């Protein structure tokens, strides 16, 4: 765990990281200044965050690990456990990405819309940062070549942002004669981005517009148990890829 601080101090001097922070800051500030209605501002910010945060987190983390390949080799030759080494690299990346997100979006939300919805939005953004940094570790441990690893990372993002929703919509239309409300809860748990969206929308009280499914969602996710459930699912999305990566990394030839 001793190497985390060195990794963080390396990453926060990275220009891409600075650009990411500035981009989030610009988006957040312009969204709140253009909209009179704070709730509408949060809604627009949510759409942007759900796209940008996973994308930057997974791409940046993957590139960083591939660029540090020789350095990670050097660290493997040192008296360090591999499990610890990989978790330190993950922590360094995750903390830096979280820092950028909190400065870029957390502070503006806190200033312009300090509400429960704003808090949930920030929590979801942080959760997604951790999930996609974890998926990036998995992608880069699985593929030896940089091009292949980047391909996997981009495909994962594409899948969770677009393809998955397409598949779910297809299923919902095909089986529209059947009651699919319970199934939709399962569907949303299988995609951290969707889960994040549902959780935020329910807090915004626009679930009335989502019809009967919205009511079922409200009942399931609305209460305390719903919050614990969604937190647990996000945690599982962080831990599972990390666990697989550590297992694979411990046996990997470098």
């Amino acid at each position, binding site marked *: 765990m*001793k*190497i985390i601080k*060195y*990794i963080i*101090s*390396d*990453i926060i*001097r*990275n220009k891409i990281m600075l650009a990411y922070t500035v981009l989030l800051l610009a988006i957040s500030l312009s969204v709140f200044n253009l909209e009179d209605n704070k709730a509408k501002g949060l809604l627009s910010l949510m759409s942007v965050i759900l796209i940008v945060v996973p994308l930057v987190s997974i791409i940046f983390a993957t590139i960083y690990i591939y*660029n*540090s*390949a*020789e*350095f990670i*080799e*050097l*660290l*493997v*030759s*040192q*008296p*360090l*456990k*591999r499990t610890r080494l990989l978790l330190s690299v993950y922590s360094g990346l995750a903390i830096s990405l979280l820092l950028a997100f909190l400065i870029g979006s957390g502070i503006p939300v806190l200033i312009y819309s300090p509400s429960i919805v704003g808090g949930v939005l920030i929590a979801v953004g942080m959760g997604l940062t951790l999930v996609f940094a974890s998926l990036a570790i998995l992608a880069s441990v699985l593929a030896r070549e940089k091009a292949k690893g980047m391909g996997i990372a981009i495909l994962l993002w594409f899948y969770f942002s677009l393809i998955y929703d397409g598949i779910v919509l297809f299923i919902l239309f095909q089986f529209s004669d059947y009651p699919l409300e319970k199934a939709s809860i399962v569907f949303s748990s299988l995609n951290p981005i969707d889960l994040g969206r549902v959780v935020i929308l329910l807090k915004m009280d626009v679930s009335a517009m989502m019809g009967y499914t919205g009511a079922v969602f409200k009942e399931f996710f609305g209460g305390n148990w719903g919050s614990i459930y969604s937190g647990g699912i996000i945690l599982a999305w962080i831990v599972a890829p990390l666990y697989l990566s550590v297992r694979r990394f411990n*046996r990997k*030839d*470098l």
Partner: protein
Amino acid sequence: MINAAHVSKKFGKLQALRDINLTCSKGQSIALIGPNGSGKTTFIKCLLGMVVPDSGTIQFHGKNIANEWEYRSKIGYMPQIGRFPDNMTIAQVVDMLKDIRKKDASATDEDLIHAFQLDRIMNKRMHTLSGGTRQKVSACLAFLFGPEVLILDEPTAGLDPLASELLKDKIRAVREKGKLILITSHVLSELDDIVSEVIYLEDGCLKFHKNMEQLKLDTGEDRLAGAIARVMRSTEKR
């Protein structure tokens, strides 16, 4: 000190190491020689636990190194290519390794840092350094903790003549202290006065492990380069 028994490793279809049996003891300085792709680096990486052999065992001080990591605190390693995170300074990299190895400043061997005059550029960031300077940093890190075993993979490749002379002086000084040194290099002429033993690998097989005197006697050459050239020619004929 290091015992390798029946070590084999396959990368896909390529047999990188075939049934290697080796013993290296304290006080020896060994040259690992062989054509490109003969398995030198793979063998070194097996010693460091970076590559896990398919079969066979490697012992360090009589203890199997599989799944171990503490033993690496006794090894200093200089890789073929030294690359570090772009935005770290030399000082940060040195501090980080000190943190990992839990050594205080007084116990470290910073001779090379002074010899290479790296102390003047300690606050430069890694991405601003030339390849040769990064190589110097790698060399300093290998020697920094006065390890019992030094593993140097192509140490002088990319260094200017002055720096490689300084590095060789350091290697000699360390050898006098009775440490085990393993060097791979293609510049055989510079190994002449450094090494006492030669290990020759070809296609992942251990061809021989002899001391210098014996090798010179067997081949009738008095320089390492000549002796190895003779060995390579004779294996080609077969």
